[in-house]
C-alpha cells in the first residue's frame, strides 16, 4: 500500500503524465488548427459560444492547446500552463455535461470532427485528464526547461 502510495506520488509518474498530456494536447491541436472551419462547426454545435465569437474561438483555442502542450512537454512555466490546460479541460467537460443534459446529438470534436457522439464516458475521460493535470501540478519535478536554465544561475550563489 505504501509502495503504491509512493509510486502514485512519484515524480517519474508525474513526468510521464505530463508528457502524455502535452502530447495529447499537441495532437489535438494539430487537426483543429488545420481544419478551423470544422472545429468552428463543432464549437457551434455545443451552443455555448455566441455566434459572433465562434470563429475566433475556433482559431485561437487550438493554438492555446498547442502552446500549452509544448510547454508541458518542455517543462516551461509548468504550473501556469497546467492551469490553462486544466481550465480548458474543465470547460470542455462542462460543455459536454451541458450538452449531455440537453440531449444534443453532437460528437465530441475533441480530436476529429467525425467521432462518436458525446457520452458520460467522454466526461469520465476528461475528468481523468483533469486528475492527471492535478497529479502533474503536485508531483512533477523532472526535466523542467526553465529550471535547467535557472539552475546554473542559482549555482553562482554557492
Amino acid at each position: 500500500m505504501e509502495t503504491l502510495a509512493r509510486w502514485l506520488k512519484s515524480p517519474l509518474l508525474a513526468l510521464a503524465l505530463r508528457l502524455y498530456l502535452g502530447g495529447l494536447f499537441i495532437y489535438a491541436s494539430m487537426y483543429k488548427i488545420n481544419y478551423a472551419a470544422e472545429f468552428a462547426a463543432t464549437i457551434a454545435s455545443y451552443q455555448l459560444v455566441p455566434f459572433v465569437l465562434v470563429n475566433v474561438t475556433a482559431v485561437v483555442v487550438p493554438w492555446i492547446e498547442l502552446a500549452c502542450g509544448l510547454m508541458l512537454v518542455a517543462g516551461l512555466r509548468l504550473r501556469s500552463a497546467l492551469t490553462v490546460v486544466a481550465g480548458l479541460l474543465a470547460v470542455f467537460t462542462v460543455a459536454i455535461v451541458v450538452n449531455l443534459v440537453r440531449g444534443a446529438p453532437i460528437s465530441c470534436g475533441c480530436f476529429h470532427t467525425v467521432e462518436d457522439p458525446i457520452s458520460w464516458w467522454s466526461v469520465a475521460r476528461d475528468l481523468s485528464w483533469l486528475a492527471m493535470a492535478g497529479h502533474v501540478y503536485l508531483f512533477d519535478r523532472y526535466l523542467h526547461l526553465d529550471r535547467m536554465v535557472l539552475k546554473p544561475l542559482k549555482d553562482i550563489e554557492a
Partner: protein
Amino acid sequence: MMLSPDDPRREEEAGGAEPERSLALKLFHLQILYELGQELAKAEEPAELLDIFLPIAMGSLGVTSAYVALCGVGQTDCQVAERGLGQGAAASLAEHAGELVAKFFPEADAALADPAKPGVLAGKHLERDPLLPSGTRAIVTLPGRDGLAGFLGLGAKLSGEPFLPAEIELLQGLARSLGLALARASAARTILRLNDSLTAQNRRLERTLEKMERAREELNLRAFQLKTLYDASSELAGVLDSDTLLETFLLMILGAFSVGGGYVILLDDARSAPQIALRHAGDEADCFDRLLAPEVRQQLLKLFVAQKDRLPQTMESLLLTDEAGLTDLPLPTSAAVIFALDESTRGIVGLFDRLAGGPYTKDEQRLMTSLMANFLVCLDNARRFETIAGLNADLNRRNVELKRTLDELTSAKVEIGRLKVARERILAAVRGGFARLERVSPLEIAAIVLVAAMLGLLFNLTNPAGIELVPQVLFSPPPPAVSIAEAERAVAGGAAVIVDARPTEFYRQEHIAGAESLPLPLFDFVYAMKLATLPAGTRFIVYGRTFSRHWDREVAARLAQMGVSEISVLEGGLADWKARGLATAEGG
C-alpha cells in the same frame, strides 16, 4: 787670647827698638806686602794663591813651617796647603780644619771682625792644642767672604824667638792680602762661573731659537697641509657623484703636488666597466681608451698582489714610487697611490712626472696619505649616496608600481562591487524565477493566451484555408422573414418548400414535418439531388438557428447564389413551430 799689633803690651815686649830700624823693618814689611800683592795678583786659583803665599810668608817671617786651612762655613772638608809640616800632620790638619775654624773663629766673631785687622793668636800655648799641628806658634784668621773661612798657621821662627809686634802686624797684612786675594779669586771664579753659565744659557737659547724656527717652518708646512686638507675636505665633501668626485680629486692632487697629469681608476667587482678620471695634456681620448682596456684591470690587480703584506685594506691607501710594477701601467706613471675602498672596490691614482721634478718628501707623502684618507671617506660617502639614490629611485619605481597595483585593485574592487550587485540581482531574479515556477501567474496565463491568439490569428490570416473571423452573413441584408402561419399556408398550398439548414444530426433528431435537410457541408449535393428539380418560383422557407450559429441565413445566402429568388427565413424556427403544435418528424 787675641792680640793686635796696636796692643800696648806688644809695644812693651818689643822694648825700646830704634826708630830707624823700626822704619826699615816697616819698609821691608811693606815691600814684602807689595810683592806679595804683585805675586798674588798673578794667580786666580786658591791653590795657586796658597802656593805663592806660603813661601813668601815663611821667608818674610823666617818660620820653619806654615799652613793655610780654608773651609766653607759649616763644612768639615777643607782645603789645606802647608809648607814644612809632616805628611801626617797635614792629613790631620785637613781632617780637623773645620773644627779648628769653628773653635778659634766662631761665626759670630767672624761676622763682627774687622776685615782690615785679622785676629792673631800667638804664643807657645798653641802647641798644647791637640788639634793644631805641633810647633804652631801663631794662627791668623783669614777674613772670609762668600761663606769662606779659614786661618793661617805659622810654626816657630828659625831663630826660636817669639813674634815681634811688627811681625804680628806683617802677619796681619799678609793674612789680609791673602784674604783679599782669595776673595778676588773667589769673585773671579764666580764671574767665570757666571760667564760660563751665561754662555751655556746663550747656547741653549740659540738652540731653542733654532728649534723654534724649525717648529715654525714645520707649523707653516702643517698649516699649508691642513689648509690643503681643509680645502680638499670642503671641496670633496660637497660632491655626491662619484665620477665628479674622481675628477675633482684628480685636479686637486695634481695642483697640490704640481704634477703635469694623471688619472684615477676605480675598479668595482660588481661593475664590468671601471670608473675613470683623466687629465692629460696630449690625446685624452686615446689615453682614455688605453685605460679602458681589459688588461689594465689585470695589471692593477697584479700591482696590488705585489704589495703582499703592505696591501691596503679597507679605506687604506699606499703610495708607490719607483715601483717596478708602475712601468707596466698603460700611461707613463712615475708615482701612484693604490687604495682599497672596501673588499670589492679598489683603485689607483696614477701621477705623471712632477713639473718641478724631484721626489716626494716625507711631508708630501704624509699629505698625500691624508688627502687620500679624505678622498676615500668622500668617495665612500658618494658611493653610499649613489646607492641610496639608486635605492630611492627603485623605491619610487616600486611606489609607482604599487600605486598602479593599488589603482587596479581599487578598480577591481569597484568591479567586484558591481559584480556583487549584479550577482545579487541575478540571484534575486533566479530566486524570483524559481518562486514563479512554484506558483500560477495570471500574467503568464494571460501571456499564453495572448501569444496563442496572436499566433492563431496570424496563421489563419496567412492560411489559404483560413476562415472568416466574423461570419460575413452578419453583414449581408437579412432575408425576408415569414411567419409560421404564413409558412404553413404556403407549404400547404404547395408553393413553398421548408428547408432545414441544421446539421444532419439535428435534423435526424427532430425536424418540421416535410422539411428537406440541407446542411451546409452537403449543400451542393443535396440541392442538386433534391431541390434543383423543383419548379421555378417555388418558395424556399429556411429554418435552423442556434445561439451559436445562424445556419438558416447561411443556407439562404447559398440558395440565393444558386439563383433561387423566393427565399424566406421562418420566424421562431423549430421551437416556435413546435410551440404552435404543428407537426414535426424524426429520422431521415
